[in-house]
């Protein structure tokens, strides 16, 4: 029987898994978008718009505090950088699922057409504004740019949302860390 080294003792270095906070973060993003969609159909589009626009187009970023909050409950020693990573991955994973739904449900050409329609609509709405100074050629140039950009806009928004939620996760950990820190044995004596 050969002698083998004793297994290393990891009990002092045990860190809870990140799977649960990430999963909760991803589900909260998906749940929020379905709730907003549901509100738009069931209650009114205005209510969904107000709630959805509460933090401009990056609404899911406000959910960045959830993975960090769950993470620090499970691990009071969580560092701000880890809070950033937790929220970034959690909200990013949820955004990826939504991106998948968007890209599977709409073709690139349809996205370009929707973009063109929306841009033309906003230009038409601004025609009476005295400060609106874009010429016909400039408007067409902007529409062409919009047609090129529009299919990638959801991807860009998802990236920005993930980064913003990461920042919020970092801030959440900075704020919550002091409260979640376990008391030392001498303090309770």
């Amino acid at each position, binding site marked *: 029987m050969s002698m083998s080294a004793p297994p290393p003792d990891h009990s002092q270095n045990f860190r809870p898994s990140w799977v649960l906070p990430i999963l909760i973060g991803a589900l909260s993003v998906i749940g929020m978008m379905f709730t907003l969609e549901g509100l738009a159909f069931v209650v009114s589009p205005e209510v969904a*718009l107000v709630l959805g*626009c509460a933090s*401009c*187009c990056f609404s899911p970023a406000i959910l960045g505090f959830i993975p960090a909050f769950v993470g620090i409950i499970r691990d009071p020693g969580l*560092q*701000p*950088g*880890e809070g*950033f*990573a937790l929220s*970034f*991955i959690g909200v*990013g994973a949820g955004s990826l699922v939504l991106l998948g739904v968007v890209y599977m449900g709409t073709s690139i050409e349809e996205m370009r057409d*929707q*973009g063109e*329609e*929306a*841009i033309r*609509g*906003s*230009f038409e*709405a*601004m025609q009476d*504004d005295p*400060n*609106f*100074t*874009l010429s016909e050629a*400039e408007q067409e*140039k*902007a529409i062409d*740019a*919009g047609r*090129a*950009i*529009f299919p*990638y*806009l959801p*991807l*860009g928004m998802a*990236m*920005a949302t*993930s*980064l913003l939620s*990461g920042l919020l996760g*970092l*801030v959440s950990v*900075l704020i919550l860390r002091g409260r979640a820190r376990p008391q030392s044995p001498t303090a309770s004596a």
Partner: protein
Amino acid sequence: MPRVERPEQFEPVHPAIDRLIALVLVLAAVFFIWILSAIPADARGHGTHEALGMGACSWPLEYQLPCPTCGVTTAATHLVQFSPWRAFVTQPFGAILTLFSLYLSWIALLSLLRGSSFMGRISRWPIPTLILSSLGLLLLSWLYKYLTWE
């Protein structure tokens, strides 16, 4: 409060996650530079995002007043299109936010190229001070925008 000195190679998260965050930041920066260089900056000093088909901000429509972030996209567009003075005059917070975002992306790119920790570097920054300063700047810029609102 004693300052915690951290070693240069401090990595607060797994290197793979660190590189992923840096990569997404660089890609997002490239994407938004592309967008902002393609659309015309709105002459009103706000509402440039409408050229992307997004809805108009409700504050100017309902109250004839700027919202706290009115003009941020316009300022970012001016800055990306090499008009830094017009960017600052349009919305100082937007201009500084864009500059800071470009700087952050540059650091992320350098970290990717050097193989060093991006999160390790930014976690040494005085984050609470930066956030409070940003909030102060946002409020001051909102006041400036309110005073110069036409």
